[in-house]
């Protein structure tokens, strides 16, 4: 079990943050619904959406129960894990998911 580093009780965490995160959960659901209602298939196959679909199960992954490491695992899933510098920068921006990963 992780160290109890949050000064709040678990009930206080629920009372303080539940509504905020209920809203965020509904935003994700609405985003996925909006994708299905939108014309064309390209967005559904976009690497960012594929990565998101891989990340969502990590929220309830039993391997994280008691580890408090869900954010770290999701960030690692979304990261480029190669180690050598890329030959050249062809863009200045980042996507939010690694285009080189087979999500």
């Amino acid at each position, binding site marked *: 079990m992780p160290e109890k580093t*949050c000064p709040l009780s678990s009930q206080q965490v629920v009372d303080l*943050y539940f509504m905020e995160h209920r809203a965020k959960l509904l935003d994700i659901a609405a985003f996925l619904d909006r994708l299905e209602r939108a014309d064309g298939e390209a967005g559904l196959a976009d690497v960012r959406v594929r990565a998101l679909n891989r990340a969502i199960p990590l929220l309830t992954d039993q391997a994280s129960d008691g580890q408090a490491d869900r954010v770290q695992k999701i960030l690692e899933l979304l*990261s480029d894990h190669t*180690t050598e*510098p890329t030959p050249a*920068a062809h863009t200045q*921006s*980042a996507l939010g*998911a690694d285009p080189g990963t087979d999500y």
Partner: protein
Amino acid sequence: MAYIDPHIHMVSRTTDDYQAMAEAGCVAITEPAFWAGFDRSSPAGFYDYFRQLTEVEPKRAARYGIAHHCWLCINPKEAEDPVFAREVMGLIPEFLDKPNVLGIGEIGLNKNSRNELTILEEQIELAKQHDRLILVHTPHLEDKLKGTRITMDALANAGIDPGRVLIDHVEEHTVAEVLDRGYWAGMTLYPDSKCTPQRAVDIIECYGNERLWINSAGDWGPSDPLSVPKCHVEMRRRGHTQQLIEKISLENPLTFLSQSGRFELGN
């Protein structure tokens, strides 16, 4: 309470923001050189930018009792062309002795390319030659983990004392490695990317309060120049002590930045 925002781009902010920050308790800021949202067409554009950072912003900040400091460099987004980058780097020594210049920053990587790394290594060397502190920008999103590791390796290869380097924009997947290797770590409070105030406080709870600070990195994009005091509110509502808040937002930045011999608090 008095606090320091150790990373904010005031050239992109209004004077009203200075007023709001002063009213919220901000007594000092540091402003790293960064990408303006577009690529500058000539080194002369950087010359004027460095004048703005060393001459104009300190006066604007002083009107609100805020001490203004800065860091100089060519940012990684404009470092893909090494010839151009070296011309800009050639301008920096002229400004290094200005009283508000703390060091070289925010240097680092953007897309983790070979040219970006070459220019990063040369700017590390510049800081080393002039015995200056270093402020590191780590890449965005999917590039952060790899870029953070390559940057720390480059600093180690150059023999830089990690205690004189702040590695910024850490998140849950990079903070432990940065701290374990002896560097200072900065958490940037952004609404969409990097850390929210809630996650920043989570990281403090999980990784402790040594060599760690928070900043707004307020700029021309979605950002909030008052995110640092808003994070203090988040700490208070969880029951954290005033002593801890002051450690993160005053004592820690003061300790790191004072190594420059030039850092001071405002009125």
